[in-house]
């Protein structure tokens, strides 16, 4: 079944469906379920968040995913990052996926900054040695300073986001997921984080999946892009083409 010359692709999806079975009524208790089940009254309707998506994402590219709210963008990212196992279809991901979303998800408030760096790094699949090696850089980049030894329940939300960002970009990831372009911290930090992301984009081994609402960003940053609409992939092309197409789409419905 293995096709030749697939190594240049970071992600391949083939006819991927994600279908939720939703009970027509809300049945989340055993009693209700048992009673209705016995009476054969449980009815489900299918809701497909992704309807047979096929796409190839070349290694080293910046790949845009655009679409309105509810189009299936987040579900697509979750399938690629293995959070959701597809209902049917094939998913092939060559490389480790680092999500740059939900900054600071997984932090524990009672742990210090340093302890949280170890925890978060472990959640991203880094070895202890890798984290120790990057520790100094992470602390410097985050600009947390001496507070790095304080429990992060004492941090401001800006400090937490900065620390989360610094850990996530400490290593050039193989596949980076950017959910919207980030605005972390103050103007100075934003500039620095954008510079770091540009650096990662320039790495020929790093593939970036950029989810955005902005046609401008797609045109500026993306080599390739796709448009999702209610679970279907309705267009695919260069960043510029998709930017135009999406712009029209939004205009036509405004």
């Amino acid at each position: 079944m293995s096709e030749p010359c697939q190594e240049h692709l970071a992600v391949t999806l083939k006819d991927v469906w994600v279908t939720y079975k939703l009970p027509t009524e809300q049945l989340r208790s055993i009693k209700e379920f048992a009673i209705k089940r016995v009476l054969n009254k449980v009815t489900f309707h299918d809701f497909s968040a992704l309807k047979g998506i096929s796409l190839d994402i070349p290694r080293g590219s910046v790949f845009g995913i655009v679409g309105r709210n509810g189009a299936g963008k987040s579900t697509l990212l979750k399938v690629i990052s293995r959070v959701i196992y597809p209902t049917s279809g094939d998913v092939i991901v060559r490389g480790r996926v680092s999500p740059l979303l939900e900054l600071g998800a997984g932090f524990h408030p009672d742990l210090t900054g340093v302890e949280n760096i170890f925890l978060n790094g472990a959640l991203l699949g880094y070895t202890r040695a890798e984290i120790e090696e990057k520790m100094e850089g992470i602390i410097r980049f985050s600009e947390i300073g001496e507070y790095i030894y304080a429990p992060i329940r004492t941090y401001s939300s800006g400090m937490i986001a900065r620390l989360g960002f610094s850990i996530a970009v400490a290593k050039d990831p193989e596949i980076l997921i950017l959910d919207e372009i980030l605005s972390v911290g103050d103007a100075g930090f934003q500039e620095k984080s954008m510079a770091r992301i540009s650096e990662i984009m320039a790495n020929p081994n790093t593939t970036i999946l950029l989810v955005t609402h902005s046609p401008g960003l797609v045109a500026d940053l993306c080599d390739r892009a796709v448009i999702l609409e209610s679970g279907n992939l309705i267009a695919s092309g260069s960043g510029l083409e998709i930017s135009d197409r999406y712009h029209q789409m939004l205009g036509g419905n405004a």
Partner: protein
Amino acid sequence: MSELYDSRTTPPAPIEEIISIFRYPDLIRQLIYRDLVARYKRSFLGVLWTMLNPLASMIILTIVFSRVFEMRGVYPAYILTNLLGWNFFAQTTQFSLNTILYGNELSKKIYMPRTAMILATAITGMINMLFALVPLVIIYLATGTPFAPSALLLPFSLFFLAAFSLGVSLLVSTAAVLFPDIGEFFPVLLMGYMYLTPVIYPASLITEVAGGWLLWLNPMYYLLNFLQMILFEGVFPGGGDWLSAAGVSLVFLLMGWIVFTNASRRFSYYV
């Protein structure tokens, strides 16, 4: 070499999960550290609580059973030994359930081996249990209960308890994802199970009241019995005792692992 994830050729879920855990080398250790710090860092008495709790339960139970029920032959050391095993089982299963039901926001956002949290919970429970050995030793010394050479078999007993508790945790967690109601009535279920198991009264009581079959059908009985033999009674378990304790724990572990890993691919479909 970058890692490859191909949904067409993934090994069976129970095996895939084991490979997955090795890809996150530092994760379980960090989760254990987090759980221990979360538990002890902000508490004034800290680790002492782990030792005081079973001691306090033992004192209450000893008073209730010896004074109120005038039961003979139930000794503090006997109860504390059972509580050591039972508390580990009860806490591991309850905490695993809570982790899956309420502490699982993270695994909806990023991928991680899905058994990692439960494995960490079980190992954290084991560490707490080692702390709880301190008051046990004190009570044994205070009540003049001798430690026999059979006590050296304790690591085996702990291993059986850990494997069994982990297996049950995985089964219960799977059920709880499908039916969150289980979270509500699990504490009651645990309490009922405790009274069905000779934890705070001697096993002979069950045999007298209900007959031996109730003991034979109870997996936890074999594990606590093994613990009692090596610590409180100070005798070496026979072949049958080894077989039943090892059999029960490994069967439950295997069952739990297979059920959980297969079901966990669908976990994200239950919001």
